[in-house]
């Protein structure tokens, strides 16, 4: 199991490295700068320690040595200043460019993916992958890796210098270090568990507030404020209990390390001072051991090192969790990037399209265990108007999905003018259709951009003409900036007006075939009539499929497809279907009988 994770992580690292590869320069810069940085930061205390030793007391100051050492120290500060700035620049540029590249690839894959992918994945989740997870990768992996690198180097170099100066004190430091690690590990583990609990309760609290505010009207109407408050206070009390413990536990990290530092400082200080006392003329004799003499300057080196040395340990323990998160996120992002795209190529090209459509023995289902469409046959003559009717969930949308090639049939084929649609290049094929769905989708750009969405090179005059034809010119002109109004959440256009804009968008493209979805409700009467008129206008002379909810639409259709449970159960004209007294007859009576009686 663990091995499996290892190899998985190895694979992820290898893939991430391919993303880093184009930025080798930055990587080299990062490594070079961090080596320089660690070296210059560590040599600093040694240099000023020498300077301190060169002034042992009144009348005994060796000025030339002092100046030399201070000069060198200043030089080392300059080097570490420059190398740290460069290091930061390299890491930042590398991170941000990687963020861009990963996002770009993930987005590209998203735009290439089949509609099935989007239908079967929670949108919020895909969004999180592209937006947040990418950040987590670079935060954890790159910053983490950089920190790990400098951290480990600092520790090693510090140890090396300490051992070189005096290995007994160095040993004491090394023995005391695990104390710091142990304290950090215990605290982190406990904190993590508590925070997890806290997140859960917080989620409960938020969903309660959401639920109550969402149903505030109901809460007020049924006088249930007290109930909702009591429940809130209950959750809040639990949050308080876990919350303070989580906070307390995480707040122990700093005092904990400060304490370990204090212990190390005390030990180093005492030992160092004793060694200073015992040193005699550049030599330190401890029983049979003889070491180099210990001085106050060297003590200052140890004191500042002991401080610097424990810091990376804390950072490294953070880095480990960061790395784990980064790997998890990387796996999620690569899942998006690896999503196979739709098959877009094809060899057949229709120079002109009449619009004869035939569906031959098509079988389709979204999942293998739930058969939906079985052996569907249809034949639609060019220029005819096909109305699709049936109760909710009967498969009207599925038919559109198949016609637009959002999904491919499992068996059978669909042809346009006798050509199998799978042989036509995907984009070329889809451009044959104009589609207006009930859920009007518009982009957060200007009105003009949206109308010209399918016709890139349309002039402003053409755009306005299309808008007029689709009866939206008048309300567009009433918008604050007319055609240049950006359609964000606070622009006030209704659902019906949105649908009119979608019709204008299709009119500008002028496609040979149409797929229309009538709105069921929520549109005011005036707009509704305009949409009907626009629909009628646009359908003239085109093969059109229309998901119908209005009698007027159904009555003048050339062909009505009556769908039920995924199958086309009846087809014909209104008159022939009424005569047959089948499912359509019953449906018609159930849906419209009441209204008809009155009329």
């Amino acid at each position, binding site marked *: 199991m663990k091995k499996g994770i290892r190899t998985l992580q190895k694979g992820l690292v290898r893939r991430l490295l391919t993303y880093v590869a184009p930025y080798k320069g930055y990587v080299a810069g990062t490594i070079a700068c961090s080596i320089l940085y660690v070296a210059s930061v560590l040599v600093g205390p040694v240099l000023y320690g020498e300077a301190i030793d060169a002034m042992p007391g009144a009348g005994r100051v060796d*000025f030339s040595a002092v100046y030399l050492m201070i000069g060198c120290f200043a030089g080392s500060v300059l080097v570490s200043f420059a190398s740290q*700035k460069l290091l930061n620049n390299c890491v930042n540029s590398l991170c941000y460019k990687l963020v861009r590249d990963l996002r*770009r690839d993930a987005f590209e894959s998203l735009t290439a993916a089949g509609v099935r992918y989007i239908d079967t994945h929670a949108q919020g989740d895909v969004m999180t992958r592209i937006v947040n997870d990418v950040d987590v990768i670079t935060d954890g992996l790159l910053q983490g890796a950089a920190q790990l690198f400098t951290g480990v180097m600092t520790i090693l170099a510090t140890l090396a210098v300490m051992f070189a100066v005096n290995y007994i004190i160095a040993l004491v430091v090394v023995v005391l270090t695990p104390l710091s690690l142990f304290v950090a590990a215990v605290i982190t583990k406990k904190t993590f568990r508590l925070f997890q609990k806290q997140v859960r309760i917080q989620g409960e609290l938020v969903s309660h507030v959401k639920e109550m505010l969402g149903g*505030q009207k109901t809460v007020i109407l049924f006088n249930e404020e007290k109930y909702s408050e009591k429940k809130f206070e209950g959750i809040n009390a639990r949050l308080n209990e876990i919350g303070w413990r989580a906070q307390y536990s995480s707040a122990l990290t700093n005092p904990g390390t400060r304490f370990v530092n204090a212990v190390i400082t005390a030990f180093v200080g005492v030992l160092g001072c004793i060694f200073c006392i015992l040193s005699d003329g550049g030599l330190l004799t401890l029983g049979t051991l003889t070491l180099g003499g210990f001085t106050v300057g060297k003590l200052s080196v140890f004191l500042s090192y002991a401080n610097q040395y424990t810091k990376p340990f804390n950072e490294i323990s953070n880095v480990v969790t960061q790395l784990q998160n980064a790997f998890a996120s990387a796996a999620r992002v690569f899942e998006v990037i690896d999503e196979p795209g739709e098959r877009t190529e094809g060899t057949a090209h229709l120079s002109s399209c009449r619009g004869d459509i035939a569906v031959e023995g098509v079988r389709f289902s979204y999942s293998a265990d739930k058969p939906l469409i079985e052996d569907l046959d249809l034949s639609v003559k060019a220029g005819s108007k096909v109305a699709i009717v049936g109760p909710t969930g009967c498969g009207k949308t599925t038919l559109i999905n198949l016609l637009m090639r959002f999904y491919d049939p499992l068996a059978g084929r669909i042809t346009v003018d006798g050509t199998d649609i799978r042989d036509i290049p995907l984009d070329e094929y889809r451009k044959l259709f104009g589609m207006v769905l009930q859920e009007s989708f518009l982009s957060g750009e200007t009105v003009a951009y949206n109308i010209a969405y399918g016709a890139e090179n349309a002039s402003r005059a053409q755009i306005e003409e299309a808008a007029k034809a689709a009866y939206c010119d008048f309300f567009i002109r009433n918008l604050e900036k007319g055609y240049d109004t950006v359609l964000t959440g606070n622009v006030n256009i209704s659902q019906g007006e949105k649908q009119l804009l979608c019709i204008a968008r299709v009119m500008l493209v002028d496609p040979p075939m149409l797929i229309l979805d009538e709105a069921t409700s929520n549109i005011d009467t005036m707009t509704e009539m305009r949409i009907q008129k626009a629909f009628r206008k646009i359908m003239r002379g085109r093969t059109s499929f229309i998901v119908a909810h209005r009698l007027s639409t159904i009555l003048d259709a050339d062909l009505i497809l009556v769908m039920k449970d995924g199958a086309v159960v009846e087809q014909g004209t209104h008159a022939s279907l009424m005569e047959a007294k089948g499912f359509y007859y019953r449906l018609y009576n159930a849906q419209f009988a009441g209204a008809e009686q009155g009329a």
Partner: protein
Amino acid sequence: MIGRYLPYLKQYRASCILGALSKWFEALLELLVPLVMARIIDVGVARGDVSYVLWGGALMLAMGAVGFGCAVFCQRSASIASQGFGTNVRNALFRHIDTLSYREIDKVGAASLVTRVANDVTQMQSAVAMTIRLVVRSPFIAAGAVILCLILDWRTGLIVTAASVLVALVLWAIMKKSVPYYTKNQEKLDRLTRITNENLEGARVVRAFANREKERARFDAAAEDMLGNSIVIGRISAWLNPLTFAVINFGVALILLLSGFRVERGSLSSGDIIAVINYMTQILNAMIVISNLVSLFTKANASMHRVSEVFDMRSSVADGAGCAPDFSAPAVQMKGVGFSYAGTDQYSLRNIDLTIGRGQTVGIIGGTGSGKSTLVSLMPRLYDASEGEVIVFGHDVREYGLAALRSLFGVVPQNASLFSGTVRSNLFWGNDKGTDEDFDEALKVACAYDFVYEKGGLDEKVSEGGKNFSGGQRQRLTIARAVAAKAPVLILDDSCSALDFATDAKVRANIAALEGTTTVIISQRASSLMHADKIFVLEDGGIAGSGTHAELYAQCPLYREICDSQTRAEA
């Protein structure tokens, strides 16, 4: 501003004061450590006195241990006090939100209120924690270290002071310079998010227009734009550590440079130099903490304003003095009623005059935005009319106590909102004294009895928003809830839209059979209202016609148009 939140902290006064004091004591000990070290070097080493050194070491260990104890005590007090503070504020805030009318909630928006209760209060809470933990400590250490250096040796102390001021300036300048870019970054990230969202929601449209490449180019441009801004931020913040490091260490170099003469003359010892260098590091660390605190407090301040905004809102619907309904009077009367929503001067309703007799079934029809839902929400005072009078059972609605008024109505809201719990707990909302028999009866009226008992009866679980029931089932359950209330007036706000014709008709017939109940039905379907005693046709906030179906069809062009658009025009 801050004053109004102090009461929420009152019960933790002891924790706050003792916590801050103990943290201060720890800081004091920490400041003394370098001095002890200096003494050990200058006295112990100079005299070769090993026992002095050992005692010094023991003292340092003891100071560390006491300091640790103090810090632990402080962290604990701070956690208890701040979390308790947050809990109190959250409770008060939620209670306050519950007193607000729908009008105020609309103004802020439900999503924003959730954020305020959850995130903003947490932000304030951590500001309290940090105040106890760090506000006393960090400035004390920074100032204390500077002062101790000045006492040790005023000349070196001056250099330390200058270096500290410089570090503060660097921190301030970098923060000031980068903040606008951070704001910009958020905007650019929002744009990326929006484009991604559009490509998820509009996946079919993008594909239908074969606009893959166009969308990619759009995303790439946005990503590139963001990259540019991020790199600027990176460049600016990359100065922070190198600059502060350089300032402090050049300070050290300068001190060493001047120390040479003074040691030569005997006015400075090497122990003192080491102590000063130690203090420099402490100052730098404290300053960085302070700069983090500043940004934390800026955020907390913004949060506090957002929370205060909610606390400052007063419900526009005030409780009435209380009166008893007169059940012989008409159920609802409106006289010259006008209404406009918060923040707009556009009237959603104007000049409404209507009477709904006791026991009548009344229909209201009209297009989206014609004011149907607004009209009925004036009856149980979800909103107050901007002008005119709303009279329920003989009294102006403002004379009733709110709870008493609302218990006169059983309302089925437009979006079928159920609450997590069980079927029974949801029905209890309607009638908290209801028995299982009452509930069964209500379920039968709403045609919900069969599917509820097929599933698991009254104890069947209801998940958040009732998502484990279909749309039609949810509507029938909300109808049952309102019926269970046995209120004199039943209001159905377009609440049969997900029912098929037969069930819709059955439910309406069952409701009509409820004795003595006045029923108001809002619908877009003419067929649902045809049999009402009276129908009001709304258009643009005004009444365009009223009467029975036959009268309206003959006299009201709009009503005829609505009927015709839903039926066969040539019938």
